[in-house]
């Protein structure tokens, strides 16, 4: 080690040591321990749990059923039976603790998503009951005349 030729080697070793020490602090313990090798397992395993812990916002009609059985039953008997409550009432979120967190959408546009008449015979859309929103009672909300929980019944009169 007396030769000046070897001196850069010391520098290189010090740099490598620094990188290894820095890596020890920066790389989490669960990084790269996946079962599928470096191609698919090179990740922070703990992140899977973080994704599992994301809050569920839409709680499905089964959640609404317990407190609103009348509405639920009415819907299940109607042609709208397959539509989830939250599609129009917004995600249940903190409801019932915070009733105002529900964002009920009574707009014409919501109904028009399915009931704008589109003549497409090759999709389910072609057989749906539809109207032309540019001519059918323009300016009125659909719920004025049609009761959304059971469209066969008459709607609100405001």
């Amino acid at each position, binding site marked *: 080690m007396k*030769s000046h*030729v070897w001196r850069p080697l010391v520098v290189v070793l010090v740099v490598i040591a620094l990188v290894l020490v820095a890596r020890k602090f920066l790389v989490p313990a669960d*990084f*790269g321990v*996946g*079962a*599928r090798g470096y*191609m*698919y*397992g*090179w*990740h*922070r395993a703990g*992140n*899977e749990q*973080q*994704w*599992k*812990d*994301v*809050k*569920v*916002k*839409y709680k*499905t009609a089964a959640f609404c059923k317990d407190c609103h059985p009348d509405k639920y039953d009415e819907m299940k008997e109607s042609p*709208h039976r*397959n*539509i*989830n409550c*939250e*599609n129009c009432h*917004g*995600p249940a979120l903190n409801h019932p603790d915070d009733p105002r967190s529900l964002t009920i959408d009574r707009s014409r*546009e919501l109904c*028009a*998503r*399915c009931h*704008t008449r*589109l*003549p*497409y*015979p*090759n*999709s*389910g*859309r072609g057989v*749906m009951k539809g109207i032309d*929103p540019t001519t059918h009672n323009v300016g009125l909300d659909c719920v004025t005349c049609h009761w959304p929980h059971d469209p066969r019944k008459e709607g609100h009169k405001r």
Partner: protein
Amino acid sequence: MISRRSFCKKSLLIAGGLAIPLSCLELFDPKRLLAEKDDTGARWVFLVDTRKCVGCGFCVKGCKVENEVPYDANVTRTWVERYIVTKDGKTHIDSPKGARDGFPNKGIDIGHGRLEEIKDDDIEKAFFVPKLCNQCDNPPCVQVCPVGATYQTADGVVLVDRSWCIGCGYCIMGCPYGVRFFHPVFHVAEKCNFCYHRITKGMQTACVDSCAFGARRVGNLRDPEDPVTRVIMTERVNVLKEEYGTKPQVFYLGLSKEVK
């Protein structure tokens, strides 16, 4: 003074040593081997029935709210495309705002707020195709991620580690399906993850729950009794861009040749 012979010997030794991958020095670990063989968990797959989709876009709305994708930004984890094939052989495709508000117009959105009107009599066939991340078995986005932020879980879902992503965009370029985008709030790569927080709790994804027509379904391919698995095994299903070798795990019923 180092001799020429000694220099050559040592160089060869160092080069040879460097050539040995670290994995060669790893001891045999039965646990790891078992982990690699483990196929007891789920393998999440998706089934889309294009014949049932009516283009209402409730799935897109539900997805955006559930997964906190900014509602008014023109990005979305899933979207619905409208295909209209006219009698002159042309295919017209649009997906205004990813069909977040459905398809409120008969006209085809050709950008800049303009609509191309198509006469009802000219339509040969028209249908809607929902799209989402294919959760490929051989995901190119995972392979190109330089930092291991995009990865595949044992149950087949590809996830993005938001705290690890450096926003280089390789995955966005690498995905042949264009399902990836930058999240405008978190400034990292974003994609559909089959509502991982819902399916791992035994729930359906937000888009499946929002769909009133049964056009979207999620299932477990490792469960032979799963109704989705049965359909995939017994019906004529198709996948998108099979030629890329990504082995997509979103299966389509009633797919037409116009769909790319």
